[in-house]
């Protein structure tokens, strides 16, 4: 199970139109990058978190989702606090200031991305991209990927459990070997599953394309107007304060 996917499917905003959610999240993302980090990014960060929580995401879950990216952001930013010189590396006040702003900006951007991921299943986004002109073939491969990755994650978890039960994950060498065996079994099984899926879909008239009918979720102009006003207000505040 993927936490953000589960959150997206159980979100209060699950049935909101894709365009509304995309406009809000991507708008915030653009603002996070375009506005000066202080106070612009801070405002975006606050807005994204408030929206995510309003959509029904527990704050704790949001923090856990942000933890992974944050580790990278902090490591990356840490390198900016030191400067190379003729006598080796030394701490840099200016670098630290730059790093702080970078962390703030990245965090705002990550929270905007998270707002999208906890309200909108990735499959909806791919369907949206398809309507915007993504080639159908690529979209269909992507949607098959989405569907099968859950099946394969379950399988991988079960294989891992059985390896643990037989002490296959104790020690570095055994873990490498066990992980290799896991993957070496998973790939043929993934392809085998694709073959069986082909047979299963043939029975339903598979003629080469994987067309389906998505539920219609009409855009509400009022919501779009509210989102636009929010984004303009944030942009204005970020520039003027």
């Amino acid at each position, binding site marked *: 199970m993927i936490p953000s996917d589960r959150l997206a*499917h159980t979100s209060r905003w699950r049935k909101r139109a894709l365009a509304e959610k995309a406009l809000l999240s991507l708008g915030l993302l653009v603002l996070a990058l375009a506005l000066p980090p202080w106070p612009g990014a801070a405002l975006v960060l606050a807005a994204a978190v408030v929206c995510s929580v309003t959509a029904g995401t527990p704050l704790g879950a949001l923090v856990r989702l942000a933890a992974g990216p944050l580790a990278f952001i902090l490591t990356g930013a840490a390198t900016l606090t030191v400067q190379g010189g003729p006598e080796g590396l030394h701490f840099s006040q200016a670098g630290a200031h730059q790093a702080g702003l970078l962390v703030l900006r990245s965090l705002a951007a990550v929270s905007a991305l998270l707002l999208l991921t906890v309200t909108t299943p990735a499959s909806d986004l791919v369907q949206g991209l398809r309507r915007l002109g993504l080639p159908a073939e690529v979209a269909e491969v992507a*949607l098959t990927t989405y569907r099968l990755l859950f099946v394969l994650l379950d399988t991988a978890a079960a294989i891992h459990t059985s390896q643990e039960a037989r002490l296959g994950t104790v020690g570095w060498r055994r873990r490498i070997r066990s992980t290799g065996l896991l993957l070496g079994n998973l790939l043929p099984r993934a392809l085998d599953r694709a073959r069986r899926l082909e047979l299963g879909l043939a029975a*339903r008239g598979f003629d080469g394309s994987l067309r*389906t009918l998505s539920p219609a979720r009409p855009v509400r102009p009022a919501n779009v107007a509210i989102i636009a006003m929010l984004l303009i207000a944030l942009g204005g505040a970020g520039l003027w304060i």
Partner: protein
Amino acid sequence: MILEARGLHYAYAGGVAALDGLDLSVERGRRLAILGPNGAGKTTLLMHLNGTLRPAAGQVLLDGEVQTHGRAALAAWRRRVGLVLQEPDDQLFAPSVAEDVSFGPLNLGLSEDETRARVTEALDSLRIGDLAERPTHMLSFGQKKRVAIAGAVAMRPEVLLLDEPTAGLDQFGAVHLLAVLEKLRTGGATLVFTTHDVDLAWAWADTVALFVNGKVVRQGPPEDVLADTEALAQARLKPPLLLDLGLAARDHGWLPPSARLPRTRAEAMALMENISR
């Protein structure tokens, strides 16, 4: 006969014969159980009955007409004969339930409105209308199984082929699934299912075909086929428990020779009541 197989031959890549001159006939509006042990090739047989696999020799007839494997012919054939595989993950590919069920109707060339109507109808007939918007990967096994059947039902097939429909389901899940299938049948569908479960075949089939070594060695009413201990032994199977008990009751004179043998728990309990009187 809505569906017939005549002299089907088919061998796997390794050269092992899966079907070896198989004959089978399916009566319209009835429930046929194809009974055999695991690995006997029951799935392979089903895949011949809707044209997914092409026999090396022999024919499949639909309403008396020999079917061919050209593109257009196959499409028409599969429209009339639906197939539900044992493992629902082998048939569900779309991210959500309603999207998945819409695949078949769209392939039939139906309009969006018609497709939507078909999806609703199919989900309702499987009693899973409330799952329409759920993501496929968050369903339980039993729910997936019903969605897979809805995917076939949405194409309104005349014959529905089901591979081990109750495998992996618990009592409750199996009872519910059978109730839903029964409703489809009274709606006019013909049901053909494979199983290795003699008790299921006994409780629920109108006709049983015993599948051994690539052939149907016996086909007929359950009380004949499932009482044929010798034929069953070839398939490494034993008679259903209730059939055995019913025959013993008949032997002891507690059931008149012409009376129906108990097929369900309720009938068996009623028989016990009768004996005590």
